[in-house]
């Protein structure tokens, strides 16, 4: 059954010296299903803000205020503004402006009315959802600490004490009990925080403010502990059958520190039911279902059921290869065309060869001629001249001798 699957909460025993009852063994209670409901701060905030409007008392200005004059406008032509002015004479009031919200002694803009909608209606299911959420949040130590309660010395959350507490009559005993169970630092904090309210509230019957301490929830009707605990500053008392959201989540913030008695926590199951079973006290009410039963994403992803059908990780990601220019990069060129190496080498050699031969040719032409060569060239020239003037086989020899005046 679901109750057997629920974790067990141990009931804190109270010392025998306080009461005549002797509690030997530590008993346990199964965690009620309410404490496992989904925690919805948005619903709690909405319901709280609407429910807290319901205890308001109406306020309004007098409906006659500002109109108890017979003022009339003077009209144009008198060098004054056209606001209605008080008629008559003989007092300061005569001739002053009246009726407007800008006038001194006039009525206000939009006078407040008593028939303003003061109270808000909230759906019953939403109200129950909020209470259930608040109860669930009160069992989570981190939320309670986040709300600001001093629960470091509390032995267990949710904190359950034995029913012998319900018959406590003296406040001094109540304080001793709180100290026993580790709830006193929270009550102490509330006592230390008592201060005068800043602002006009202090003269409007809201003089003192203080923090909230623990909330004691009891199970049996007419338990004496109400009177014992109610005078401790910060401590509130509530019957489990009439839990108030304004007490469970003060200010709309989840996680009030709640101290349950054993009979109270045993009644919770019958009051609120479970996720499948209807509640006995609230007709047809079933605890609200959450959108995700298991909200632990990391655990779901790493579970066997998911991991067994998931595709394996792609370690070998194929990326686009970078294209390198073969015309500039020799290695890439050789990869594509190995002959390019020899072709290029041969081209280079041929170029070198061409350069060399051209250079040789030019050098030869530009080289300065040596003396012997020069003398030899000159001598060859002279010899040819001599043959020219002496060679009689030459056709124009006669003319030539006369012309040059050369004698043989």
């Amino acid at each position: 059954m679901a109750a057997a699957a629920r974790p067990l909460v141990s009931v804190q025993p109270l010392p025998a010296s306080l009461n005549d009852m002797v509690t030997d063994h530590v008993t346990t209670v199964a965690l009620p299903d309410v404490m496992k409901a989904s925690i919805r701060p948005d619903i709690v905030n909405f319901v709280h803000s609407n429910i807290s409007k319901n205890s308001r008392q109406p306020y309004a200005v007098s409906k006659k205020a500002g109109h108890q004059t017979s003022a009339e406008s003077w009209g144009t032509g008198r060098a004054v503004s056209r606001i209605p002015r008080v008629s008559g004479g003989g007092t300061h009031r005569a001739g002053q402006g009246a009726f407007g919200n800008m006038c001194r002694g006039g009525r206000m803009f939009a006078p407040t009315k008593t028939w303003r909608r003061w109270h808000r209606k909230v759906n019953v299911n939403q109200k129950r959802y909020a209470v259930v959420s608040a109860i669930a949040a009160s069992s989570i130590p981190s939320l309670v600490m986040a709300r600001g309660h001093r629960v470091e010395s509390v032995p267990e959350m949710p904190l359950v004490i034995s029913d012998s507490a319900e018959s406590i009559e003296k406040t001094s005993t109540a304080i001793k009990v709180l100290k026993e169970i580790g709830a006193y630092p929270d009550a102490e904090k509330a006592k230390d925080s008592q201060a005068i309210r800043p602002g006009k509230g202090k003269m409007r019957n809201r003089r003192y403010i203080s923090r909230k301490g623990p909330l004691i929830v009891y199970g049996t009707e007419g338990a004496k502990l109400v009177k014992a605990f109610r005078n401790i500053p910060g401590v509130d008392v509530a019957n489990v059958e009439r839990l108030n959201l304004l007490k469970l989540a003060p200010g709309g913030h989840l996680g009030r520190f709640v101290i349950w008695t054993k009979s109270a926590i045993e009644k919770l199951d019958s009051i609120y039911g479970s996720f499948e079973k209807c509640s006995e006290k609230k007709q047809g009410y079933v605890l609200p279902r959450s959108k995700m039963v298991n909200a632990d994403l990391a655990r779901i992803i790493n579970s066997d059921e998911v991991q067994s059908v998931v595709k394996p990780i792609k370690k070998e990601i194929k990326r686009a290869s970078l294209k390198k220019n073969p015309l500039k990069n020799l290695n890439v060129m050789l990869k594509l065309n190995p002959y390019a190496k020899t072709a290029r080498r041969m081209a280079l050699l041929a170029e070198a060869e061409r350069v060399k031969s051209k250079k040789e040719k030019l050098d030869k032409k530009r080289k300065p001629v040596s003396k012997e060569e020069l003398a030899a060239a000159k001598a060859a020239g002279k010899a040819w001249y001599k043959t020219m003037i002496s060679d009689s086989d030459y056709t124009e020899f006669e003319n030539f001798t006369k012309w040059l005046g050369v004698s043989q």
Partner: protein
Amino acid sequence: MAEAEPLEMAYISEVILKKRKHKEESIALTRKTQLELGQHGGKKRKVEDIKRPEQLVREFRERELDFIRMKQRTKRAKSALSTPNSKLLFVIRLHGKNDMHPKTRKILYNLRLTRIFHGVFLKASPGVLELLQKVEPYVTYGYPNVKNVSCLIYKKGYGKIDNKRVPLIDNNIIEQALGKHGILCLEDIVHEVANGGPRFRETLNFLGPFSLNKPKEGLQGKKALFKDGGDTGNRENQINDLIDKMN
């Protein structure tokens, strides 16, 4: 002192390293200059971006005129087209997509010239020449020489494998794709394209369109024909100068 197994060196591909370096250096710099100049990334919706009805009408009319001009071009004398100098043509798309009739756009799409400054090799058949005549104001074409064919394919050659554009950096890629036609390496492709071998068509189909750089001072910027001082149309051997600038 127990020594743990030496960790494998993590090989990060060069593309990623280059991207990171580029991101750090130049993008940061451009952001800085953008901030200084007061320009921010992202297109602002200006009033001028909203199209006015006059503009829409004008665009439609321009497109219709373009279509009419195309039809007139096809009616011109076709005698000059049937005698090209060489078998290989290189076609470069020169103009953008505004004022283009959808039929003209479709022709360019069929020729695989989908973007401005894209180039393709084509066989100089009469059918192709007729198509080029139709889209004349948007392309220029000519007869590339062997050196340019080789340079284009080496520098900007991409193959089409599985409808994906794969860079030709290894002869294995070419062998796998065209091995059955007897083309095993990049030089084979160059030879096939330049000299019109038996598998000319398949090779041209395998080679994707070449995305060329924009020529720094190459074009006149006019839609007139090349012989009239513009850019477009057949420029025969002058295409080689243009390819040199755009490669």
